[in-house]
């Protein structure tokens, strides 16, 4: 068996050689730490994105021109500038706004992906709300519900079914996008992989494994999105 391997050239030298793989597997701890940071940033970022997206989505479905305008401005700004630049801005702006305060990089990551995906989720939420017939809002208002109360008790619970598949897709994108943290030394999976790979030049195996780890985190969610989509269609 070993003999067989010895004859295969690319396993002996080059970017994918066996020693590089061995070095990586000996240092998997580094990557696991990165996975934990990525999961932490992704889950808290998702909470922030859902909160922002719901509020801004409700605003952009409202009748108030001011609220709609504000929501539009937010969505357009975040959708039409690169996440990378947004993260840089937060990274550089926060220390100016809160001088002397230590802001962990993780917080910047949560804010970055949270605000960015909040804009996308706002659009999903808006479309979901608008998919619910106008009669539902009128019925709720006619019973004395406030606009927000009608949203909370009547509209959003119904919109949830429509909205769940695209929301799950947003969660997948959000997980992948936490990798921008790598550029500000965020300690996430991408950064951990980069740091390890750069130190010894083990780029090949490291990126393969890092990519696989992202895949393992995202694939189940993507499957879930598909399943929810089918279920929404049946109903």
């Amino acid at each position, binding site marked *: 068996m070993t003999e067989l391997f010895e004859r295969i050239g690319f396993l002996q030298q080059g970017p994918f050689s066996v020693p590089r793989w061995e070095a990586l597997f000996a240092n998997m701890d580094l990557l696991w730490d990165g996975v934990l940071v990525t999961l932490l940033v992704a889950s808290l970022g998702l909470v922030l994105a859902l909160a922002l997206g719901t509020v801004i989505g409700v605003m952009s479905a409202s009748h108030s021109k001011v609220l709609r305008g504000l929501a539009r401005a937010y969505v357009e700004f975040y959708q039409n500038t690169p996440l990378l630049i947004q993260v840089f801005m937060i990274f550089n702006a926060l220390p100016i706004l809160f001088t002397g305060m230590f802001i962990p990089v993780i917080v910047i990551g949560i804010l970055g992906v949270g605000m960015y995906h909040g804009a996308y989720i706002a659009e999903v939420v808006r479309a979901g709300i608008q998919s619910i*017939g106008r009669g539902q809002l*009128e019925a*709720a208002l006619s*019973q004395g*519900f406030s606009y927000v*109360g009608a949203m909370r008790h009547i509209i959003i619970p119904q919109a949830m079914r429509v909205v769940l598949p695209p929301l799950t897709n947003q969660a997948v994108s959000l997980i992948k996008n936490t990798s921008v943290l790598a550029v500000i030394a965020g300690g996430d999976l991408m950064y951990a992989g980069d740091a390890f790979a750069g130190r010894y030049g083990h780029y090949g195996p490291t990126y393969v494994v890092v990519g696989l780890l992202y895949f393992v985190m995202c694939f189940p969610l993507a499957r879930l999105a598909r399943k929810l989509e089918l279920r929404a269609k049946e109903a």
Partner: protein
Amino acid sequence: MIELVGVNKHFGLHHVLKDVTLDVPSGQKLVIIGPSGSGKSTLIRCINMLERPSSGTVTVDGIEVTAHRAPIAKVRQQVAMVFQSFNLYPHKTVLENVTLAPIVVSGVSKEEATESGLRYLERVGLSEKADKYPAQLSGGQQQRVAIARALNMHPKIMLFDEPTSALDPEMIQEVLEVIIGLAQGGITMLVVTHEMGFAREAADRVIFMDDGMILEDGTPEHFFENPQNDRTKLFLSKILR
């Protein structure tokens, strides 16, 4: 109980209500008749401010709802509406449909709302459907649930916006019977409808609207036997054959 003074409503270039003035005393059963597009639905939707009049004032139970910062949500709790397309909450059971607003909006306890809700469901003949979802009911049953939902707010005023127009013919009667039953009580009722038999039986006042104006206003007898306006006569001749 309800007072409209000089109410105008424009939808873009369309002038839907033209200087409408109307006074509905407490307890009156008012039926509003008229061809489609005559503004009758818009008129009753101005009472609970689902439509905001372009000008004029609407006063409901002493509160001017057209005023700036009027307590509209408070007034709406007193003014229940039954819609043409039922608008039941599809994600809630029949009982939840009936109890949700009393609990959340009016702050009634769950026990109390459930008890009165079941009573009203029984009144519309649907207490055995309490745990079903709206989609499991026929159109006539859904509309009866919608009436029970309206009643469970204990309203002083009920607005019916073509309550039978979306129903199959065989279901119209069951809904009308419920509304006729309600008309025996003391609630002020405004009913937009094309059901002439219902107007004869349940109304104590009929108004005829066309082109955004009230053209005829009187008792059912006056309206059906002795209409004054030519357009009313024309409309009746088409409808009553």
